[in-house]
């Protein structure tokens, strides 16, 4: 399992990258994509949507099941990765490259884990 050191992680298996300028990018972790299996559809939020820390901002469909995506931050959706609409499989093949949304005006952040603590969490879930 791959867990880059430069990212922060939520307990619901999203990653968060702090961008220069204060916006954040959000995606799903390698552990999450492996647990979900082949992803075939993503329901993205729209630019301008308000997202709330700990609440659903979209969903992901694997062949077998649907799963909610949880936002690790409160803020406004600045951009979404529309490439994923046609190629959701990028979430499987490159989970840390396939960002899902970029959020601006972040006012609140969930308690996030560093890579080491996140790895430990995943081990416990196994």
């Amino acid at each position: 399992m791959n867990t880059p050191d430069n990212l922060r992680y939520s307990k619901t298996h999203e990653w968060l990258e702090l961008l220069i300028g204060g916006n954040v990018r959000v995606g799903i972790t390698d552990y999450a994509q492996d647990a979900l299996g082949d992803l075939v559809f993503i329901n993205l939020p729209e630019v301008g949507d308000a997202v709330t820390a700990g609440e659903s901002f979209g969903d992901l469909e694997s062949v077998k099941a649907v799963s909610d995506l949880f936002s690790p931050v409160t803020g406004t959706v600045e951009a979404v990765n529309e490439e994923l609409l046609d190629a959701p499989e990028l979430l499987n093949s490159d989970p840390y490259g396939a960002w899902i949304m970029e959020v601006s005006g972040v006012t609140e952040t969930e308690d996030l884990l560093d890579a080491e603590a996140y790895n430990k969490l995943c081990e416990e879930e196994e």
Partner: protein
Amino acid sequence: MDKKTPLYDIHRELGGKIVPFGGFLLPVQYPTGIIAEHLAVRERAGIFDVSHMGEAVMSGPGALAALNGLLTNSFDTLKIGGCRYAVMLYEDGGAVDDLIVFRMDEDRYLLVLNAANTEKDVNWIRDHLEGDVTFEDISEHIGQIALQGPDSRKILAAVADETAFPEKYYTFRDHVSVAGVDCLVSRTGYTGSFGYEIFIPADRTADVWNALRDAGALPCGLGARDTLRLEAGMPLYGHELSAEIDPISAGLNFAVKADKPFIGRDALLAKGAPARVRVGLKAIDRGVMREHQDIYVGENKVGSTTSGTMIPGTKASCAMAYVDTACAEPGTEVSVDVRGRRLRAEVVPLPFYKKP
């Protein structure tokens, strides 16, 4: 307590994601993933552990009459070496299970049952058995592997004598040596692709599995088995057929011979034409239809889905559903409530996939 099939340790070694299904621990997929497994069966060949399926033997001078009385299909014309699909009904016309009957001998039949229903089926049959018949559940002694896909024949020929193969669809040959193991091989399957099902003494199942895998068949899990059968438009008990859904509504008329008496026939005939029938749905909008989602035409609820997924290799979500007969015509546009979002879909003929 969920049971293990004879291949459980192999599934673990291969990295299979193990889930409980029908009372057994089985792999939903291997690290290859459901999409690759589905496509391997459509394009090459895959193997599935279907040892969870139930097997029972009915024999004796009264066996034929007993089957005709218990099941919707007629077995009068079933030859030795032939297989026939049938549904077993409750008195009210709802389905106990669907199954395949193999005629082994003049007075001996093998019944292949759904794993989750085996105990219920065996009890039902025992309670309704009449005449000079013996009935035995042999599920524990039998392992089963489905070898499915266009390359199945080539792969089987690498480990067995080709002249011993059953040739026609829905026929079988007993005592075929597969990788040195005495097996029954049938030209049956649950994928819509060419293939075989192999019945193996439980303690030799692993030998056959390993030989088929070495010959080039890709191990496939329950996930691909479900997407393949859905694409092939095949009903799954508990979804398209159940104690509440009779075989006529399910469109299984070919397996119902109402010119002879069987349990549930009178109730079935009394129902007349079904109000809702089974159809295929193909999504027009992006999204994935799943089971138990309501279907609308305008604001009128006209039915609900029974199985749904995104078909691997396509970008299309497909579902099977029951809709009012007025909305069952192919080309009818409906909308499906996908967790609060209305997704447009079109009624299409089943199956979604046909063997080229």
